[in-house]
């Protein structure tokens, strides 16, 4: 990266805090799912924390993100309250969607989280629209769509990139290339050498970086954000990681060879960060405290959420429309 700014120590500590919070949050999700203590489907993010943390660190609170069913990391990175997320996973009235959405559909407009969509690639044109909207309103916020490697085969991936070029929209398409789309391996489904290469078809910049390295993610994103804010349009970013989590909680992952997993795990982002910490002049004791604080914060959020009230059955009729005459029953 040409003269990409080096993050300050405070920024590095903040990114680390963000990553360990994501890791801990989803570890609890896995425990709860295994014990059948949260309802529904949950998709965890273990191993890709550097992507959400690095991207979100390069954004302003007023910038937008759109996410997927695998959204916990993105939501945490953008600053959604853990308590409200945990409550949503538990289906409680205090959740981000009052219990209507669950794990797959976290949202929080207040921190620029447009929402998480369960249809593969659905967030891409939505982020594009947010970017167009910012441009039309004369604002300099940017929008980010997170999606996976499997999503590049959806029609809207291509449509959104073509339109982003057409409108010179301030949008970042962030592909989390975690080597698998469900039980299908990347080397089977991806025909180009990289996802970033696909940007060429739309005359957009395509940038690929190590998704296990939060600083590399941060720097690549910062450059794309700066370009977008300055009127330079969209970028396709590809961050390479590995999906250590199952496709969903309960997936046996028999299609991931053990040696392959082990080789990737040797590079997992938290360990990578910790190993580079001394070289970056970071204090090991402070990292330790950050881990303890994050664990405590996550534990407190889930403990509190579990005590929160359930929605009343009649609340199911709320929020279908902004206003509606005539009843919904």
């Amino acid at each position, binding site marked *: 990266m040409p003269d990409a700014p080096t993050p300050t120590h405070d920024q590095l500590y903040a990114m680390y805090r963000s990553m360990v919070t994501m890791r801990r949050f989803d570890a609890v999700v896995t425990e709860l799912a295994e014990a059948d203590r949260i309802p529904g489907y949950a998709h965890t993010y273990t191993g890709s924390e550097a992507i959400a943390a690095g991207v979100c660190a390069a954004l302003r609170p007023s910038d937008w993100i759109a996410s997927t069913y695998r959204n916990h990391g993105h939501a945490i990175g953008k600053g959604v309250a853990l308590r409200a997320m945990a409550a949503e996973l538990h*289906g409680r009235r205090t959740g981000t969607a009052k219990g209507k959405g669950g794990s797959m559909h976290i949202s929080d407009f207040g921190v620029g989280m447009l929402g998480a969509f369960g249809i593969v690639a659905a967030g891409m044109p939505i982020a594009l629209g947010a970017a167009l909207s910012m441009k039309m309103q004369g604002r300099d916020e940017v929008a980010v769509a997170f999606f996976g490697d499997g999503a590049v*085969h959806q029609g809207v991936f291509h449509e959104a990139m073509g339109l982003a070029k057409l409108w010179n929209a301030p949008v970042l398409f962030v592909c989390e290339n975690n080597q698998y789309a*469900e039980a*299908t391996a990347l080397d089977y489904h991806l025909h180009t050498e990289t996802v970033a290469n696909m940007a060429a078809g739309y005359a957009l910049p395509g940038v690929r970086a190590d998704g296990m390295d939060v600083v590399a993610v941060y720097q690549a994103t910062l450059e794309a954000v700066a370009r977008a804010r300055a009127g330079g349009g969209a970028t396709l970013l590809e961050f390479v990681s590995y999906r250590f989590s199952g496709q969903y909680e309960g997936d046996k992952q028999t299609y991931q060879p053990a040696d392959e997993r082990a080789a990737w795990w040797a590079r997992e982002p938290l360990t990578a960060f910790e190993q580079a910490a001394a070289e970056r002049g970071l204090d090991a004791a402070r990292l330790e405290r950050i881990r303890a604080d994050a664990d405590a914060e996550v534990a407190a959020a889930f403990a509190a959420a579990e005590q929160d009230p359930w929605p*009343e059955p009649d609340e199911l009729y709320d929020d279908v429309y902004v206003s509606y005459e005539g009843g919904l029953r």
Partner: protein
Amino acid sequence: MSERLLTIRDAINEALVQAMEADPTVFLMGEDVAGGAGRDDRGGLDAWGGPFGVTRGLATRFGRERVLDTTIAEAGFFGAAVGAAMTGMRPVVELMYVDFAGVAYDQMLNQAAKVRYMFGGTQKVPMVMRTVVGGGFRAAAEHSQTLYSIFAHIPGLKTVAPTTAADAKGLLLTAIADDDPVVFFEHKRMYMQKSHVPEAPEPIPFGVAAVRREGTDLTIVGVQRGVQFALEAAEALAGEDISVEVIDPRTYTPLDKGTILASVAKTGRLMIVDESYPRASLATDLAAIVADEGFESLKGPIRRVTAPHTPVPFSPPLEDAYLPLPGRIVAEVKRLLGA
């Protein structure tokens, strides 16, 4: 007769095996219908068999040449199914959840359904779209829908929604052999239910409803899981001397109107149970047909017991209030009968 108990999931698998053995033009397409693509040499083959394991083992048995794991490109592979069907193959294509219909729908609605008609009967599209419907999994608004009606609405498509393992097998065999495009709905909460299934391939004709329980006071037509809800309610109501007849149309296009109208002629009352949205739905359609063609038989209003006009909520207390569970059916029957 010796019982041969199979789950609906396994009955569907067996129908696919028998159809593929009998006809080399039958092949499968979908996302992870085998699973493990790219890792076959490391034990990946057949890792999934779709998210519910329905098609597990088929790739091992028939090879990846006939069990195609696609990319996440529904518009593409549904269109490819249409083209393959027009040119001599019989594709069975999986839409993993019916909620993803939005991205596959154009090929079904505008191409698969219309090729025969708009090309003047010169061509046919013998394809099957298998898809998974249903709430009760706490899977929220985008993974829980029962979008029967958006397919039943379209002339040119046939629609099938089995409720027993034997029906799942027999109706799927018919669907695959049928020369028209068929949409075959599988309810995710019913996959593990077991019942007797004949081992031999015995196709079940479309357009023949099943009377699941005989009764005299009221007819309930159930739509897929609605049949089971209705049967549970009927059992409870029998204890209170209310005799309910339960009808399972099994296929919606074509629809066996005769069996429904004959039942209403006998009982004089009709309720329809469907977990779908009520507006412009199968429940509404069935009610309209009986109001139109069986009005003279009716002693009172037709009652639809359905989901409300809202998306499917996530939280358990909300989803339980959402679904037309047997308790609600019992209460509605009593209200209808003034009992």
